[in-house]
Structure formats: structure tokens, C-alpha cells
């Protein structure tokens, strides 16, 4: 049977050996880090963005590379998923973009700070994270559940304006694609005329006080494009 001094040798020997391996692997990890994390792309904005990220303890709700608090979405690929424009609008007033949902603090970032946060998240999204997060691997239609009837619309014929796919689609769906915070817009063109849609987009609150629809920062031509597109959805 093991004696006490053998037990001690096992403890000390094991600790020393595995600590040494750990230090060796750490040196190698640090050596490979520049390539794996694209250090050349770490601009001044990225560094500032990281500071803002930490200063406000964003990880106290969100996760990043899967590390965080599981209360708010993982933001590793958020720039790829939502796009810079949407994040920019979202940060101005998070609760307006997801009314009645889980709340996020309104941080009142300046234009510059928002650019920095987005730059940081964009850089994080391009880190070589061994393929994480994985793509969903169970196709929804393989599950025997009653399907939401797919709405037939002429959306395919008409291409979506850029701003529409950047902003509106986060909450509204067209042709089964998009968010479900607001109603689907497949037949919106037959319900409202273009004049009404134009006024609605200019100031939703003025038309329907208390509506969940936020007033989006759109220039006149952008709004016109969207109205034309919506009017065609019949």
C-alpha cells in the first residue's frame, strides 16, 4: 500500500510536471495569438471599444465568445448578424428597439463611442475561435410541428432597399424571413397607401400614440425607397 512519503511524491511530482506542461503550452498559445486574433486589425477604435465594453460591464448581461452572464444574447457574431447600422440605431435607445422585452441600460454613447464599440465587436467576430459558434444543425422542417403558413407575396420580385434589410427586418418579417417583434409586412401595401406609410415612418407616435414602433433615423430618399417597396407588397 502507498506510504505517506510516496503519496507526497505523487502530489509534488504531478504538480510540477503538469505545471511545466501548462507553462509550455501557454508560451505556444501566446506565440500563435497574433495570427489567430488578427492583431494587425486591432485599430485604435477596437482598443477604445474594448475599454467601453469593460467600463460598462457589458459581460454582466451579454456573452462574448460564450463568456458572460447568459441574460442577453451572445455578441460574438453580432456585426455579421445585425450589421453596423442596426447596432448603431439600437444603442441609441435599446428599449425602443425591443419594446416590452428584456431591458438594456441606455448608455447614451456618443457617435464616436458607438463606432468604437462596433469596431471592437467586429474584430472579435473575426477571431479564429475554432468554428464557434456552430451553425444550427437540426433543420426546423424536420420536426413534426404545425408549420407557420408561409405567406406568398411578391417580395421576391422586388429587391429590398438596403435600409430595410438593415433595420426593419430585425423586427418585421417578409416572406417568412425576419423578426417577429412587429407584425409581418407581406400584405402591408394593400392595407395602407403610400402617403400613410410615409407619415407612419416619419413619426409613428404621431399617428398611433403608444405604439411600439420606434422612430428610425431615415433620410428622405431612404424613407421614400422603403415606402415604394412596402406599397408594392400586396
Amino acid at each position, binding site marked *: 500500500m*502507498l*506510504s*505517506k512519503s510516496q*503519496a*507526497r511524491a*505523487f*502530489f509534488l511530482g*504531478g*504538480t510540477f510536471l*503538469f*505545471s511545466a506542461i*501548462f507553462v509550455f*503550452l501557454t508560451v*505556444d*498559445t*501566446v506565440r*500563435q*495569438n497574433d495570427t*489567430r*486574433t488578427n*492583431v494587425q486589425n486591432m485599430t485604435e477604435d477596437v482598443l477604445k471599444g474594448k475599454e467601453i*465594453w*469593460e*467600463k*460598462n*460591464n*457589458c*459581460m*454582466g*448581461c451579454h*456573452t*462574448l*465568445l*460564450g*463568456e*458572460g*452572464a*447568459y*441574460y*442577453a*444574447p451572445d455578441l460574438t457574431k453580432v456585426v455579421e448578424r445585425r450589421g453596423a447600422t442596426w447596432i448603431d440605431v439600437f444603442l441609441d435607445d435599446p428599449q425602443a428597439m*425591443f419594446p416590452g*422585452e*428584456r*431591458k438594456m*441600460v441606455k448608455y447614451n454613447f456618443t457617435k464616436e463611442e458607438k463606432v468604437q464599440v462596433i469596431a471592437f465587436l467586429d474584430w*472579435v467576430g473575426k*477571431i*479564429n*475561435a*475554432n468554428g*464557434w*459558434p*456552430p451553425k*444550427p*444543425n*437540426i433543420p*426546423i422542417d424536420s420536426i413534426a410541428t404545425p408549420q407557420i403558413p408561409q405567406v406568398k407575396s411578391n417580395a421576391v420580385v422586388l429587391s429590398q432597399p438596403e435600409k430595410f434589410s438593415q433595420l426593419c427586418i430585425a423586427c418585421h418579417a417578409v416572406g417568412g424571413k425576419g*423578426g*417577429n417583434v412587429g407584425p409581418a409586412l407581406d400584405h402591408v401595401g394593400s392595407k395602407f397607401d403610400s402617403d400613410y406609410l410615409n407619415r407612419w415612418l416619419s413619426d409613428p407616435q404621431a399617428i398611433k400614440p403608444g405604439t411600439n414602433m420606434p422612430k428610425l433615423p431615415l433620410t428622405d430618399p431612404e424613407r421614400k425607397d422603403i415606402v415604394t417597396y412596402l406599397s408594392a407588397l400586396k
Partner: protein
Amino acid sequence: MRFQSQKVAYWFFATCMLLLSLQIVYGFIMGFARIGLDGLHDFIPFNTARATHTNLLVVWLLTGFMGAAYYIIPEESDRELYSVKLAYIQLLSWVVVGVIAIIGFHFNWWEGRKFLEIPRPLDYLVVVNVLTFLFNIAMTIWQAKKRSTTQLVLFFGLLCAALLYLPGMIYFDNQTLDSYFRWWVVHLWVEGVWELIMGGILAFLLIKLTGVDREVIEKWLYVVVGLTFLSGILGTGHHYYWIGTPKYWLMIGGIFSALEPLAFLGMAIWALNMYRKKGKNHPNKIALYWTLGSAMMSFIGAGFLGFAHTWPSVNQWTHGTLITAMHGHLAFWGAYAMLVLAVISYAMPNLTGRKLFTGMSGYLAFWASNIGMLGMTGALAVAGITQVYLERKLGMDFLVVQKEIIFHFIGMLLAATLFTVGIAYFIVDFIRHGLPSNEAVGKNLGDLD
């Protein structure tokens, strides 16, 4: 208690009770926010509640370890503590730093790195504080009449815990490296040197409560902590799968974290065997409940549930979901919280000379809190598995999935209420013991050594 200076431990334990209560309050704030009742959002947003909840956990456990050390080291060294005055100064400054940190969290003053949210200036104060603590303990051991393995393992654990705090204080502008070295603190604490501290405290309690020969217990202490380091050091790799580090961490982290349950299994078998070998019955059954309970629950929570989601092909789906929260709750409860409660249960009658361990309330505290914690873990497990399938495997939207699992959080809140009842019983018992008394010096109630 044998020595007058062991009384210091009482004040550390009292601080523990206070911080634990506060931790529970913040846990409830988070639980309610998850079911949509987030009325405190403007004053205590989720990230504040979360940082407070986890930091209070760390601080109360460390306070408990310090109290345990101040209680155990004099007895193991067979002499008074080096300086009682220093111990009180240390406790006071520790509490002041903690209070400032927690108030700071409510005013957006923090470092924003998970588990290490304490702002940098306060980090330095923590270091000074812990050095003071270690100096006091080291001097006591240095001038001791006798050396014991338990004493040395405990000291080595505390020393390494202090040293490993330092990598967390280096600033990295690269997120991957930042995360890499943050785990040196968090993982190597929880799955490394804290287990050493746990082993040391467990050995002391087993010696006192079972009366089995010290040599036998201490031999197995080496084996258990040996297994801990053997698996735990490279087991850090399971945090390095998806943060931008090389691919070999998948294999190394996978293999060594699969070995991690062995250390906890060893701990459980060791404690149960020593109990089976006992000569006589120690009257303080409640302390024995917590001691053996800790050894077993740590195997389930830290060993088994950790094992359940650290294999890379599983972890790629469960990483960053409520599965982690599920494992975290039972792991911390079993391994460290129950152990601190075991030390307190053992030490209180000795410190005060009052034999409250004969009553019913101790058992109520034990069973209500344990069943409550198992219920919370179960609720989080179901919520976590649902989340993994809907969000990760099917690709549903995060917020949509969160609405699907609200029901499980109602379950969690109910289990948490039972847990809180248990802890309330424990604290009431703690208060009923009263203050440490001079008449209790020089004798231990019912020790078998």
C-alpha cells in the same frame, strides 16, 4: 477551542453569514428579472446584480476560508495565533474594501471582467490584505511547536490562491489573451488551489469528527490533492476551446477535464471511508452532515455536472448557456459553500461552549438548503437543455427562447425560497450560539483525537 486567539474566527464567520444573506438577495433580484419582473432595472440593472451576486460569493467563501484558517492553524500548530490584533485589522479592512467594491458596482465602477469585476485600485488593497493574512498565518506556523500535513496543505493552498490573483491584474488589450489569463485566476482557483484549501479543511474536520488516525487521513489528503492538480491544471483547457486559442486545447482540455471528477470522487470516497472507520460517535452530528455532504455534493456538482458538459463536442453547444449556470450553482454549493458551513457548524459550539447541535433546526437547515439547491440546479438544467436545443440546435432567436423558459425560472425561484429557508435556519442557529466565551477556551466539545 483550545486557544484564546481562535475567537477571531467567529467574526470572520459572522461576516460570512452577512455576505451570504446579501448574495441570496441579489440572486432573487436576478431570478425575478428573468421572469420579467425587472422593476429594479433603473437602480440595479442585471449586470450590477450579477456582478454583486458572484463577487459576494467569492468574498464570503474567502472570508470563510480565512476564518477556517484562523480557527484551524492555531490548533494544528499547538500555539496562539501570531497576532490577534493584525487579524482584526485585516478583517476590518477586508470588509471595507468589499463594501466599497459593491457600492461601486451600483455606480458603474468596475473592471467588467467576469468574476474579477473589482476595480483595479481596490485590487491592490486586496493584495495587501491577503498578504497581511498570509503573514499572520505563516508566522504562526513558523513558530509552531509541531508541523502537520493538514497545516501545510492549507497554507500552500492559501498562498497559491494569493499568487494566482496576480495574473488577473495584468491588462491585455487583446480579448483572447485577456480571457486566457483571466482563467488563470478563476479556473486555477476554483478547480485547483481552492480544492487544496478544501482538502486541508476537510482533513482537519475528518480528524476531529471521526477520530481516525491522523497519519491515515493525511496520506490520503496527498493523494486527493495530487489528483486535483493532475487533472485540474491542464483541465483549464476546457475554457480555451472557443476563445481564439490553438486547436490542441480541445484535446487537452477535453481529456483532462474528463479526469477532473476523479479528484472529487477521491475526495468523496476518502471522506466516507474515514467516516466508516470511525471509532466513536462525535456528538456534533450536524458538522458531520455538512462535512460528508460537502464531499458528496462536490462530486455531483463539480465533478459529475462539470464532466457532463466539458467534452468539446458537447461544449460547443452548451458553452455560454444556462447549462454553465446550472453546473456553477451546485459546484460552488457542494465544494465550497457547504464546506464553510461545515467548519462553522463544527467551530461554533467550541467557540461559544454551547451545545446547540442537539436540536432539530440544524437538520432543517441542512435538508432545506440542500433540497432547495438541488431544485434550483434541476430547474436551471431543464431551462439550459431547452435553450441549447431551441437556440443553438434549431437556431431560434435568443429572446424568443428566453420566453419559452420563463416557467422553469418560476420553479427555480420556488426552490430558491426553500433554499433560503434552510439558510435562515442556519443563521438563526448561528445567532443563538451567541458570542465566543472565555469559558470555552481550552476544551473542545466531544473531540475524538
